[in-house]
């Protein structure tokens, strides 16, 4: 298993994709951090408009939570590439020659993305905080970087990013076609899930379901949701439950992948 882990880790970091995606992630979150902080800090106070404007530590937490709420597409993609890249470039043949135990292979891929996922999480947190904290501190109610709840949120954001990378690997094992996997990830994260959360959260009967969606569960782990704070209002799962739900997504997808994609003949 140790050898498989080292091998899978080397595969991840020996192409340019991991740092290219990381650069895009950082750039994107710097941009989002500035825009969000500016909109909170410089929004005109108008009590009659009914617009929700967050204040104080709430504002800081909402912004810092975008490492998950907005950034989760990146660890998902890098995780999925660990599997889909093998199929796209037919390296899966050589991979299974040196490691015929397919469950071990999948396990190694899931675990080997964790360090990369943690790095993504750290960079994402640094990008958002670096971009938004000066604005919040200088013109808003403060950056709250010593606040315990903020620090917890940031730390859990890093953890959740690593979990997203694992879920990406598991998803790749279900959809080994690289283009299809990326399209589904983009469509789901940018379109399907936000709408589903909004729609499900709008009705009493389905409100309880929305918080079990993967993105909502991840918000539950970090304990703050930009989505929720800005009008969705949907409640989040408690931290332990949310963590279990997120792990269950990874486990369920990995099991499906193990008994579909990784059971087939490799041609």
């Amino acid at each position, binding site marked *: 298993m140790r050898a*498989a882990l080292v091998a899978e880790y*080397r595969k991840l970091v020996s192409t340019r994709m991991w740092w290219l995606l990381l650069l895009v992630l950082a750039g994107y979150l710097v941009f989002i951090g500035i825009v969000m902080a500016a909109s909170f800090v410089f929004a005109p106070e108008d009590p009659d408009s009914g617009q929700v404007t967050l204040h104080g530590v709430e504002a800081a937490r909402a912004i810092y939570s975008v490492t998950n709420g907005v950034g989760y597409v990146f660890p998902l993609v890098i995780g999925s590439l660990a599997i889909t890249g093998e199929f796209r*470039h037919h390296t899966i043949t050589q991979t299974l020659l*040196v490691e015929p135990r397919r469950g071990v292979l999948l396990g190694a891929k899931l675990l080997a993305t964790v360090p990369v996922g943690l790095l993504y999480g750290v960079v994402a947190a640094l990008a958002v905080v670096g971009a938004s904290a000066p604005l919040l501190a200088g013109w808003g109610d403060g950056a709250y970087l010593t606040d315990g709840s903020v620090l917890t949120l940031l730390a859990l954001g890093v953890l959740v990013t690593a979990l997203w990378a694992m879920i990406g690997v598991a998803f790749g094992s279900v959809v080994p076609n690289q283009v299809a996997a990326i399209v589904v990830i983009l469509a789901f994260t940018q379109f399907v899930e936000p709408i589903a959360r909004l729609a499900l959260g709008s009705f009493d009967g389905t409100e309880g379901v929305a918080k079990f969606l993967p993105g909502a569960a991840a918000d539950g782990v970090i304990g703050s949701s930009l989505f929720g704070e800005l009008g969705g209002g949907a409640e989040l799962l408690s931290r332990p439950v949310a963590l279990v739900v997120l792990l269950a997504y990874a486990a369920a997808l990995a099991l499906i992948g193990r008994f579909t994609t990784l059971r087939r003949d490799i041609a």
Partner: protein
Amino acid sequence: MTDPAGPPLAVEGLGKTFGAIRAVDDLSFRVRPGAVTGFLGPNGAGKTTTLRMLLGLTTPSAGRALVGDRPYAEHPTPARVVGAAIESSGFHPGRTGLNHLEAYAPQAGVGRARCRELIEFVGLAAAADRRVGGYSMGMRQRLALATALLGDPPAIVLDEPANGLDPEGIVWLRQLLRSFAAQGRTVLVSSHVLAEVQHTVDDVVIIAEGRLVHASSLAELAGLATPETYVESPSGEALAALCRDRGWTARPDGSGLVLVDVPAAEVGAAAYAAGLELHQLASRGVGLEDVFLRLTASERQP
């Protein structure tokens, strides 16, 4: 490091069906250590499917394939038992040649130094830190071979290894495979062209339409060949008459005749006895390619 005495490979009643197609059908053969065995057959004969089953990539529909005493995948570190390069196995174009080897080294139980050593051994030292996307077909073949050799395996299975190699590379590969066999390793090499491996192999296993059509030493295969003799005489008429007298089958070839299934010595003796002047008398090889074509073509008839 590794005991170079290779394990025998055994294919026993192996079968694989894809839908209605029988890609491999009740195939049995053995590959002995200390020799190079050519695994031959036309394109689509089922060679790669057989090798994939031998290497645990594809599950057989029937029968089994063993490396030594057990299936490939049941060896604790298979890359240290069999080094394999399968056609259609690929490379990530964005990874360097050396990084490719390093990604597979841990499971072969070797370190980075061995990777560097191998990339030099296969003649890719200058390209070691270049991305594989820029490699030629021949360079990829060399890198695939280096990958197969990572664990210094006592058995080597190569699928169409000569494809894309330049003539110099083919000679190098031939010497390498001969030296492996001389060390006692088991070497199995597939090809769809007999001529490509004719000078490399000791044994041949020939399949067509997924079935075994011939397995023997190369010498025994040559025994199936019909000898041909080229003969040229300034007196074409007299030569033709001699052929008629002796009942030889002849066909014109350039300015002489090719006699089928007649040894050169017999032609020479007959011409001497008849007082016929000859300008050329030569054995035309053993026509192994013809044997190969005959063996593989006969299977196609209903």
